[in-house]
């Protein structure tokens, strides 16, 4: 096992390196400069760009980048938060998004699963249809419309929740209350995703032979479903749920903007728009790393959930 993980990690490092390198060249081939003051004299602009080696051949810049990169240092931001270390920017932004995301997870996983189970058990009956329609509706209404409506009606018109998230740094009750709407807005999508997936997997599991055996043992439908079908559906479910866990570090551009959450949502887009290469590269690296780790975790989780793989049997 350890050896397998080691092998995977080595492969991952290589992949990551290629991703980062390709991205480096792609990013740096964007036209434009991070200095967007058109009144600045040309030579001043050039001098400042020179300071960041931006006028040198790409390959030389790549060399500079690699030198720091091996220490996982992406340097300082040049446009988004000038002079602030990229990793530090991420370290302040990620927890903010995480706070909301964690609650959204806590909400969406059980709700999604329960809806999925319910729909599967009532397959092709009214609850199933209602849930299915809801799921598609959740998926199909763009989040910026959805979040705006939530904010307008529930926060502004009804006044049940604050319009924007409060600024407290620790998680207090009032902060939590203010996060309810963004949490909801974030959750609809994942609830729908989980429910849909659960339903599909469960429908399959419910028709399996071991369910028959379980029922012929005298278990009730509910017992058989929870004890057997759910467990077996969990393997494919891990495929979408685990990425949700690792995805909590990201933020939603739209929802964070609407509810004024200073999280990760807009960082990448802004960094690209502002040509803030260090930030863009940093975000890209950490996200790719998390992404690849997620794939690895998903693969390993199969082993944890499925004894056939854990104990080394063949599928």
């Amino acid at each position, binding site marked *: 096992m350890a050896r397998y993980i080691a092998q995977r990690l080595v492969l991952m490092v290589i992949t990551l390196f290629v991703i980062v390198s390709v991205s480096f060249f792609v990013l740096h081939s964007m036209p434009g400069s991070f200095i967007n003051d058109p*009144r600045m004299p040309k030579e001043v602009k050039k001098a400042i760009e020179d300071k960041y080696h931006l006028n040198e051949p790409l390959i030389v810049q790549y060399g500079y980048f690699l030198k720091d990169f091996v220490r996982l240092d992406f340097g300082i931001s040049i*446009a988004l*938060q000038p002079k602030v270390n990229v990793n530090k920017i991420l370290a302040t932004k990620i927890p903010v998004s995480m706070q909301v995301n964690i609650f959204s997870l806590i909400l969406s996983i059980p709700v999604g699963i329960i809806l999925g189970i319910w729909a599967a058990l009532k397959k092709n009956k009214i609850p199933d249809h209602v849930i299915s329609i809801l799921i598609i509706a959740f998926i199909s209404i763009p989040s910026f419309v959805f979040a705006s409506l939530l904010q*307008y009606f529930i926060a502004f018109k009804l006044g049940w929740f604050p319009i*924007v998230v409060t*600024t407290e740094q620790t998680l207090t009750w009032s902060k939590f209350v203010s996060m309810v709407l963004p949490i909801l807005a974030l959750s609809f999508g994942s609830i729908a995703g989980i429910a849909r997936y659960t339903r599909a997997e469960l429908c399959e599991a419910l028709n399996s032979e071991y369910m028959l055996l379980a029922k012929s043992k005298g278990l009730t439908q509910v017992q058989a479903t929870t004890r057997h079908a759910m467990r077996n559906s969990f393997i494919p479910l891990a495929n979408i749920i685990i990425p949700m866990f690792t995805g909590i570090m990201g933020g939603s551009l739209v929802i964070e903007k609407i509810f004024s959450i*200073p999280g990760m949502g807009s960082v990448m887009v802004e960094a690209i728009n502002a040509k803030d290469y260090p930030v863009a590269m940093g975000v890209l690296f950490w996200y790719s790393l998390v992404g690849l780790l997620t794939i690895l975790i998903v693969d390993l989780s199969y082993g944890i959930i499925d004894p056939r793989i854990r104990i080394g049997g063949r599928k």
Partner: protein
Amino acid sequence: GNKDVDSEVGSQEVADELDEAKENEPVVYRIAGGKTVTLNPHIYQTTAESDTMSLIFGNLLEMIYDEETENYKIIGNHAVDLPTRNEDGTVWTFKLKEGLKWEDGTPLNARDYEYSYKMLLDPKLKNSRGPQVFDADIVVVNAKKYWDGECEWEDVGIKALDDYTLEITLEFPAPEIDFYLAFTGGGASSPVQEKIYEAGMNEDRTETNYGTSKETTPSSGAYKLEEWIRDQVKVYVKNEYSPIKDIYTVDRIESRVVEDANTRVQLFENNDIDTVVLSGANYDKYAEDPRLVFSKSTTVWSMFINMASEDKPFLRDVNFRKALFYAMDRKTIAEDIFKTAKPAPYVVSSFKIAVPSKGLTYRETEAAKSVLPQNDGYDLELAKEYFDKAYEAYGKKMEVEIQYFDNSENMKRVAELLEQDYENLFGADRIDIQLRAVPWNNAYDNMEEGKYDLGFGGWAGGVFNPWSSMEVYTQGFTSKIDQFKSDEFDELYMRTVKGDLIFKEQERIEALAKMEKILLDEVPFVPMYEPESANMFHDRIELITKGKYFPGVGFASLQSHFAPLE
């Protein structure tokens, strides 16, 4: 001077006064705005940042609203009074107040100023605000050389003669108002605290983290940061050590980052913030609201024409450009698309002051009125006439592309409107207009490189110096986005800004009118409108300016009267 990104986002500073009844309750002013990128005064970029800096960074001088004269006024802040100058206006001397202190109580004196300028111009740091002292209204001796690393600091014309005397030596004489303005407000000319600036320096002395967090942003101004959470909130409270703190009535400013315009309006309606800037989309709803006040801008937005186009010779034809000029429906653009803007068939904004002593704007002068075209420059007959000529000369269908900014709905609409208007007026068989969305900084790059046909742009400039704003149209200007070239124009510019006309009020104004006329005749760009933003202030605020917007101080909300919060 900055390029305006989008006129919809204006500045947000305001003030108030203590209510007699609730003496001990601090006056709180709550605002919402965009993100602050940096508070390092040597590298900031936007007006929003300089507005913030004005609160926390003191300077030698300060511009305030004077209730008596009902106008703005420049007073000494760290300086005892206005500076003195030598005869030809090249050497200026500030006397500093005694007992000035930084936020932490350590003394602040002329040496801090000198250090600060030294750092601003440091050849290794390559601060982007450096050009402010060698490529702006004032040009300090040898500043550019030092920035380039070509001379010693001793050669630069900025000296702390002693702890309380600062001497600035200029390469060219400067009018008083230009010189004063260079030392008001917070920004590159405010001092930085050496201790913190040095502590944040990296090994190579190429970067410092000054102004990147609350800890690294010491106050020398009327307010100090109590809290700064990046991209979320800033709280300012009065700085006890500030010599001018009593001018402001507001004790505490809470500023929230809210990027979504709808959200801001809801927060305002919900009484969570005290003021809001309305976008065009939200304006309709409040069009008749008595709380509305309007702020002005120094920018005239124009449609630039690539008058040196290689592949489209008709763009080089002044008749064609004039046709575009006269066919532009400025009123519709200003009133129906932007809602709050004003049609502007001219180059110099109506907000710019020509006679600072009287507060007289350039547009109010006779000289300016004489160059103003009729009927806002909207004359379809004339336009057609010009177009026919141009069309005849070219002989075939003209295909032009308008580039617009991809982040501005309104600019898109303007482009859409122009497409329809021009095609309808000149005939879709004779002119075909294409639209192209471009990220705004790329749009400017394209224009600089002459890779465009028609494109929107606008220059902001100092309110008090309409002349120096003309630099952008001179041939020598390095970031030129138009393709206009005129020796006559350049000469006039040199004379009004660095030459013989500097201190000759009337001739200077006439020269400006002449420059404007040259531009309007050549039409390197078609002026469209000047933005005004609609602001709303909460009932509890009574603006000291009575809703008028003044150069340099805006609505002076921080000096205004505030009723207590419920």
